[in-house]
């Protein structure tokens, strides 16, 4: 008997299923995204890659926290386009002849978003809270030289230093020194920030968005947008798609390839410098690196341009130690301005290691996008002179732990820059600095130079001092400075009036407007 084949199931069920999917897609195609620009004058949607972890200014460390809090709060001073201190809530201070007393005059009629007046008591309260060890503020180190803060009248703040500190003023434009209201409990500020910035906190959906509305009483002028929404989009490709579809109006990238893919007819990308610097930290306290000749061998064996080209596709510039614009180091002013393998081998021979040696290197994929590429390129370059590098790619928390403990020979790092070299390096390279154990290098001459640099406000004298600091660091190969990268500020073409600044600074966002197109 012929076996009859069972008939296939009717395809009607398949058709019904297909129709369901098609109708969902049809609903989708009928809307759901902005074609471009959004409504006139916002709200502007700013894409951030992670939820801000800190909402109190003096605790803020993450980029996202600084981006958001920088719109909600205001600082005593601002910076101009050249990153020089400029008036903020207060005018530039009058400094006494002995450099110990700074007198600030606050602008008139300043107010917080809750309507209360912003006066000298709020400034005193903020600064004293930052300085209080119980606060554990990340900005406490900026006030290390401060002896007292007084508020003799509502518009005057007098800061007295223990000793002259020319770097003190530069810190007052940092978001983590923003002024908070003295009559609002700190715990309440965690969930409902109250500031005097261009945009006021309206609502927050954790891990999704933070919505701000315009502060009509903002002291610099009426903000150009009705509001700003910081929207969390964790995936970089998804962020690019959101920019191109108009769902997001602005975002900042650190990756040149991503920035290129974001560029479109309706998205313009501006390239800005960074003060942050990429570096191979050498720990001179580590047994393998105690001899300066070993460190100089490493320094001479590395072609910085090759690291930049390989890891960051050439998007940036080779750098020396100091990236502060007014004090920038000459990257060629070092023992081996170009890669010199012969010289490197000579140094190894002087160190009694003609056959090379083995060192370890920690890096982390989680911290920033080029970390592992930098490690691999440097490993390959050092292999040519006989230095065998064991690269340990760590999770970001593991990296931070090892880094803080100084548990490494070398470390790939992206460290924060500043407009003032003292703020950048005193904590690393003075013998009493909080990170000197991590830096691993110190000397009596550096201690003396850093003290000199703080003690004078004369720009020419300071420039000369920090040139010597930079030279000593390079001559002793304390670290191997590689490059400063670029940041890419992507904005919808409907966004006007925003001035991209070094470090992706958003301090001019309040001037931005958005036209409907």
């Amino acid at each position, binding site marked *: 008997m012929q076996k009859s084949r069972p008939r296939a199931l009717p395809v009607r069920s398949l058709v019904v299923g297909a129709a369901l999917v098609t109708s969902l897609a049809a609903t989708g195609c009928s809307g*759901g995204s902005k074609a471009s620009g959004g409504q006139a004058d916002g709200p502007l949607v700013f894409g951030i890659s992670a939820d801000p972890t800190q909402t109190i200014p003096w605790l803020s460390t993450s980029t996202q926290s600084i981006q958001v809090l920088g719109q909600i709060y205001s600082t005593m001073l601002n910076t101009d386009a050249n990153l020089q201190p400029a008036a903020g809530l207060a005018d530039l201070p009058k400094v006494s002849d002995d450099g110990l007393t700074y007198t600030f005059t606050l602008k008139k009629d300043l107010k917080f978003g809750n309507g209360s007046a912003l006066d000298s008591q709020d400034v005193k309260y903020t600064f004293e809270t930052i300085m209080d060890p119980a606060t554990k503020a990340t900005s406490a180190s900026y006030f290390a030289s401060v002896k007292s803060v007084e508020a003799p009248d509502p518009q005057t703040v007098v800061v007295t230093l223990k000793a002259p500190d020319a770097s003190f003023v530069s810190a007052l434009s940092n978001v983590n020194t923003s002024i908070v209201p003295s009559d609002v409990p700190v715990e309440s500020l965690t969930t409902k920030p109250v500031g005097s910035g261009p945009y006021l906190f309206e609502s927050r959906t954790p891990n999704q968005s933070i919505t701000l509305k315009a502060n009509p009483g903002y002291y610099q002028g009426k903000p150009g947008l009705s509001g700003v929404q910081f929207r969390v989009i964790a995936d970089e490709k998804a962020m690019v798609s959101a920019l191109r579809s108009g769902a997001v109006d602005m975002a900042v990238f650190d990756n040149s390839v991503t920035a290129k893919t974001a560029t479109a007819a309706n998205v313009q990308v501006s390239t800005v410098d960074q003060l942050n610097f990429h570096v191979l930290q050498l720990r001179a306290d580590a047994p393998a690196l105690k001899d300066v000749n070993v460190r100089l061998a490493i320094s001479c064996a590395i072609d910085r341009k090759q690291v930049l080209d390989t890891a960051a596709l050439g998007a940036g510039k080779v750098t020396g130690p100091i990236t502060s614009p007014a004090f920038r180091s000459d990257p060629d002013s070092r023992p081996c301005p170009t890669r010199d393998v012969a010289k490197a081998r000579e140094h190894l021979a002087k160190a009694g290691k003609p056959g090379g040696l083995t060192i370890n290197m920690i890096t982390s994929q989680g911290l920033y996008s080029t970390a592992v590429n930098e490690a691999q390129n440097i490993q390959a370059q050092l292999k040519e002179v006989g230095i065998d590098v064991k690269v340990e790619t760590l999770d970001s*928390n593991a990296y931070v732990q090892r880094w803080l403990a100084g548990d490494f020979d070398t470390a790939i790092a992206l460290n924060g820059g500043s407009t003032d070299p003292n703020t950048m390096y005193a904590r690393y390279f003075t013998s009493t600095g909080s990170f000197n154990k991590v830096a691993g290098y110190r000397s009596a001459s550096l201690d003396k130079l850093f003290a000199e640099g703080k003690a004078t406000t004369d720009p020419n004298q300071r420039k000369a001092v920090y040139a010597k600091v930079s030279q000593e660091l390079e001559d002793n190969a304390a670290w191997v400075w590689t490059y400063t990268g670029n940041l890419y500020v992507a904005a919808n073409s409907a966004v006007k009036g925003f001035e991209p600044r070094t470090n992706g600074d958003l301090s001019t966002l309040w001037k931005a407007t958005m036209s409907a197109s």
Partner: protein
Amino acid sequence: MSLLFALSRHPVLRRVLEALLTLVGVSVLTFVLLRVLPGDQITANYGIEAGALSPEQLDDLRAYYGLDQPLVGQYVNWLGGVLSGNLGISSTSRQSVLDMTASALPTTLELAVLSILIGLALGVPGGLLAASRPGATRDSGSQLASLMALSLPTFLVATVVSTWLANTFGWNPNGEEFATLAEDPGLNLQQMLLPALVLGISIASPVFQTARASVLTIRDEDYIRTARAKGVPSRRLQWRHVLRNALIPIVTIGGLQFGFLLGGTLVIEQIFSIPGIGRQVLLGLNQKEYAVVQSTVLVIAVMFVLVNLATDLLYRVVDPKVRAE
């Protein structure tokens, strides 16, 4: 002891006991793994700035985060809280983990339901279709499609498809703020469409393979031959006899896949910015929020256990032999 033995013989009570032991095991394992991982809430919040803190400040912070207590004490405190309905607080957002989970869970449930429906809608008919003519073109073609779906990483498909749609048509609902089904059903379904399709296609493959293999096995059974010989109409043969018996392994694979989906498909949630349970766990891990991770993982484990129980109950409906047992 004999009472425990007697309880363990009872089928329902035995399952409940096994479920409870599983949940305790999961909670202990999660607790231990979190503590073994490098870093803690201090390094997660402060980063390298933790190095600028004095020993006294670090001690203060350890006390604040409860890190100075013995490990057993930390576990018991947390478990005690959970049993009384307190899943902990996120120190970052100050939200209770219960509230966070209450808003993330429906999103994950919705995505899981949509994905499993698509997976079953593609996989079951596809498997039946392939099994109807084994070795024929439709069979080879659908097996190839299934293999491709299995081989392609979901994150790659998700990224490529969403990027292409955004660049070509400007269609990117996932770039908008997430809308729940209650807030804006239209936008919500658009936002769920691509992730559910991507997940559904990845689920469809094992469902397809299971359905095909199951049907091919059932077809050759004696009772099918008997039914055919007795003149049972072909359509009735397919639905009442072949499909019904082939359903058991399909129910098993479907249940397993649904359970995994309820665990939160982390990569898809990240790519499409879906605020589900998976993303909540990841954010808790990044910020080293022990309470968030432990409590959320426990919730996921509870749901997996419930799905398994539901699958067992479904067997009773589908398979008369299980009912008889």
